[in-house]
């Protein structure tokens, strides 16, 4: 009888086993696909594989030197949930990371939500080693690409920087952002429940396409020389800001472009809000009225249109009346009987107005035809349009059209009432240096192909002629006079023919009504040697306080850089 109870008991246990088998078949075989889908839905995640950002180089004797590159550095983060003793962990980490212990403790304390806190970015290998050796549970080291700028502030306005979101800001980083960024790849990876990818069974859906790298036209040596000269000029003149551009007058390749104030793109985040202006590449972004530096351009338009010649004479009375306005020369000078060469050499405003009248065919009056000729010429030089340089934030400038008043056009002949940039100015004057062809200013020379080869970016560029060679030579010769006996005398160098033109421009008031009393922008644009120029250079000094004329504010810096360039380009002095 009792054995029957045992059999019954054993039999009772058969039932759940049968049910279990049935259920196992249901879950594991019949519903396998259903659960397999759910498993992969929660275990797999799509990740972006970051594309490598393109780098920027300068070339020196066939070697490439980076000015913007990726630096793989460790960063330290923590999962506060895993931190057993925030106080102790903070005490251990504070001296290693050189952080405030209290801040660290606060960051490492679990609040219920903070599963990820960054403790320190960009730690060097020593620090990373110490963090690893501390073996604190929940404190993790990871690699991350950081942008590094080996030349720092020297190339800061050219490179710009990459912000914390990975977007380029200012300069080439912003202008070329899409091209430098490349395209991120896609990775389908199995992860743990926290979403951290496991190293197994990874599946690349799309390979990342790395960003392109470029070689700049800029010469590191010239850039350095220009920077030094600019800084000295600013100190000597107690000036707030300024720029120097050095360009190849034939190709438009920019050899140097420096501005002050500047900033170090490696530490862009430490720039104070009131100093954000230092991010701006004022050579391409800041508009100014060029002043007398503009005169050679007006002259070339008139000569090109056969309205004047070098020896066309003009009788200067020291003033010219246009309607209710009177235009004087600087310091109210009177020059009497002069020719066009002397108009440039002595920077005679009234002479420029006379040229405008001649353009219209009536020596006594400004006419519509004259204004149209000047306007067409100015357009040809590229004023009022962006040059297209590969730098972010370029300003277009502004030229008043021919509906503007006669006085506006009269002022324009000597560079007032026209808004331009330093880069536009140097590009407009390049044809006078190179024999009459327009240049496209640019800072990119070559693209680095995936296999490491370099490819010239500008091949077979046909350059537009905007004036005859004779016109260019005539104006260039006039500009020699400026250096030999005019306002450019401070850059006179024995054995070298330098052509140039100073400009001391008034600064329009912010409200647009008239000009500031005690502010001017001194500039000098010149090129040398005149018969086969190796460079064209613009020096601009804003608001000099000690020397109010460009001949003393901008010209010495030009002379300093020119001297170094002659030796760098190994230009022998004439007659030696």
């Amino acid at each position, binding site marked *: 009888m009792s054995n029957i109870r045992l059999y019954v008991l054993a039999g009772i246990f058969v039932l*759940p086993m049968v049910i279990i088998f049935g259920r196992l078949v249901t879950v*594991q075989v019949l519903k*396998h696909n*259903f659960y397999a889908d759910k498993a992969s839905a929660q275990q797999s995640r799509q990740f972006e594989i970051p594309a490598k950002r393109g780098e920027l180089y300068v070339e020196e004797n066939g070697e490439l030197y980076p000015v913007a590159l990726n630096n793989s550095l460790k960063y330290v983060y923590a999962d506060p949930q895993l931190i057993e003793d925030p106080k102790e962990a903070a005490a251990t980490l504070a001296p290693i990371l050189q952080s405030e212990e209290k801040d660290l403790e606060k960051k490492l304390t679990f609040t219920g939500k903070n599963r990820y806190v960054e403790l320190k970015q960009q730690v060097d290998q020593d620090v990373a080693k110490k963090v690893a050796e501390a073996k604190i549970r929940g404190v993790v080291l990871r690699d991350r690409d950081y942008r590094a700028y080996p030349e720092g502030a020297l190339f800061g306005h050219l490179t710009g920087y990459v912000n914390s979101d990975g977007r380029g800001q200012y300069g080439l980083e912003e202008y070329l952002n899409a091209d430098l960024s490349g395209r991120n790849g896609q990775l389908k990876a199995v992860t743990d429940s926290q979403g951290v990818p496991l190293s197994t069974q990874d599946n690349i859906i799309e390979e990342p396409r790395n960003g392109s790298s470029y070689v700049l036209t800029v010469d590191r040596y010239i850039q350095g020389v220009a920077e030094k000269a600019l800084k000295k000029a600013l100190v000597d003149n107690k000036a707030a800001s300024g720029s120097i551009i050095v360009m190849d007058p034939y190709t438009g390749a920019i050899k140097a472009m420096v501005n002050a104030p500047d900033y170090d793109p490696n530490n862009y985040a430490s720039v104070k809000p009131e100093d954000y202006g230092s991010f701006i590449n004022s050579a391409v972004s800041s508009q100014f009225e060029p002043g007398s530096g503009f005169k050679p351009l007006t002259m070339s338009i008139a000569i090109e249109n056969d309205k004047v010649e070098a020896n066309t004479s003009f009788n200067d009375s020291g003033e010219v009346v246009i309607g209710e306005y009177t235009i004087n020369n600087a310091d109210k000078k009177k020059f009497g009987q002069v020719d066009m060469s002397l108009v440039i050499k002595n920077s005679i405003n009234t002479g420029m107005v006379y040229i405008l009248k001649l353009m219209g065919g009536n020596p006594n009056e400004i006419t519509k035809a004259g204004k149209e000729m000047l306007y067409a010429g100015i357009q040809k030089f590229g004023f009022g349009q962006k040059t297209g340089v590969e730098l972010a934030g370029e300003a277009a400038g502004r030229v008043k059209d021919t509906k503007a008043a006669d006085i506006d056009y009269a002022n324009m002949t000597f560079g007032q009432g026209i808004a331009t940039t330093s880069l536009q100015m140097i590009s407009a004057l390049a044809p006078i240096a190179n024999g009459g062809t327009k240049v496209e200013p640019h800072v990119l020379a070559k693209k680095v192909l995936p296999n490491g080869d370099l490819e010239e970016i500008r091949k077979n560029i046909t350059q537009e002629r905007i004036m005859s060679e004779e016109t260019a030579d005539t104006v260039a010769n006039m500009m020699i006079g400026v250096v030999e006996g005019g306002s450019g005398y401070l850059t006179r160098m024995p054995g070298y023919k330098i052509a140039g033109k100073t400009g001391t421009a008034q600064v329009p008031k912010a409200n647009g009504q008239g000009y500031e009393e005690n502010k001017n922008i001194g500039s000098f644009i010149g090129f040398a040697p005149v018969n086969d120029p190796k460079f064209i250079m613009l020096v601009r000094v804003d608001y000099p306080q000690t020397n109010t004329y460009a001949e003393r504010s901008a010209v010495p810096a030009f002379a300093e850089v020119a001297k170094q360039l002659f030796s760098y380009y190994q230009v022998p002095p004439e007659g030696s």
Partner: protein
Amino acid sequence: MGKVSRLIAEVRERPHHRPDYLLGLLVIALIGIGMIVIYSTGSIVNFNMTGGASDRNAFFQKQLISVAIGIAFWIFASRVHYSHWRKWALPMLIVSFVLMLLVFIPGLGLNINGASRWVRLGPLSFQPAEFLKLSLVLYFAAWLESHRDDLRRISTQLIPFALVFGLAVILVVILQRDLGTGVVVIALALTILLVSDAPLWLFGASLLSMIGLGALSIILFPYRLERLSTFLNHREDVMGADYHINQALIALGSGGLIGRGLGNSLQSYGYLPEATNDSVYAIIGEQFGLWGTAGVVMIFGLLGWRGFRIAKMAPDRFSRMVAVGITVWLLTQAIVNITAMLNLIPLTGIPLPFISYGGTSLLATMTGVGILQNISRYTEREQSYADSRIGRRDRRSRNTGFGPMRGTQKSY
């Protein structure tokens, strides 16, 4: 030590035969499966829990130590004559109860997942419920055996039995909120009662009162109601109250027929809670598929067969009740664990015998198997127990004499 060796030496003096080796092999297979799973996934679970700062194989190493100690317990229990447990049952039960109460002493008890099931004494932490089950089997069997003559006459004699039983159920189910262990305790108590000399109506009455108590506990404790409603209104969304069971089903279901393969578990990467513990069966399903899960059920089935077989041929009432109790304990615990993983019953925190990570469970179950094996050394031929029931007067001589085996020398 001298006493232990004397106890073991005693076995040789009594007539006996080979123990049930198949039972031993089945248990070793289960422990082996557990070790493999813990080795392959314990490192992941441990890594998740510590953020990689501690030893990756800590789980496996601890389990290895537990198995080593468990083998010592097993050998001891299989060598010591089962009749000694009759004397030890009451002290063991008292110690178990005391340990169960320690759970509620602040500083000693560990509260994990809303249930107080662990006691921490110095470097040791253990689950007293595991030893309570073994103690109850031995105590019930001993008590029913010693009171067998009274059972038919005066049912009031059952009061102490009912008190102990009730106390165990109250401790486990109500105070420790451990419904899984409660089910096992109730099952083993009822089945021991069933195979005892107690009248069948007593068993029936107990069964009905247990069902009533179960219903009451669900009504009284809202969290249990919540679990029940979770179970009844199972939703397939992955998060929320159904998280644990859904993750278990995903592990089992994604394993399919042949599984992802050894060491390829993904659910143990933080998805499935208690992956090496209470949920280890789901990880077996994920890694080894239906072959693994069905295999484990088969092994437990065979284990049940051997256990009941030993009970059937047990030499006396006490050993028979002990054999049934231990077998029912292991089987019920396995079934509760597995059916919970399959969403057939609500989830309760209960380890899968021999397989789940955890020292206390291993020591208790391995001791139980040792006792079962010891009983198997003294089993008699077919019908032996029936014979003994007919000639009750023979009992004395058989109990004291452990006479030579009767009948043919067929092996079994």
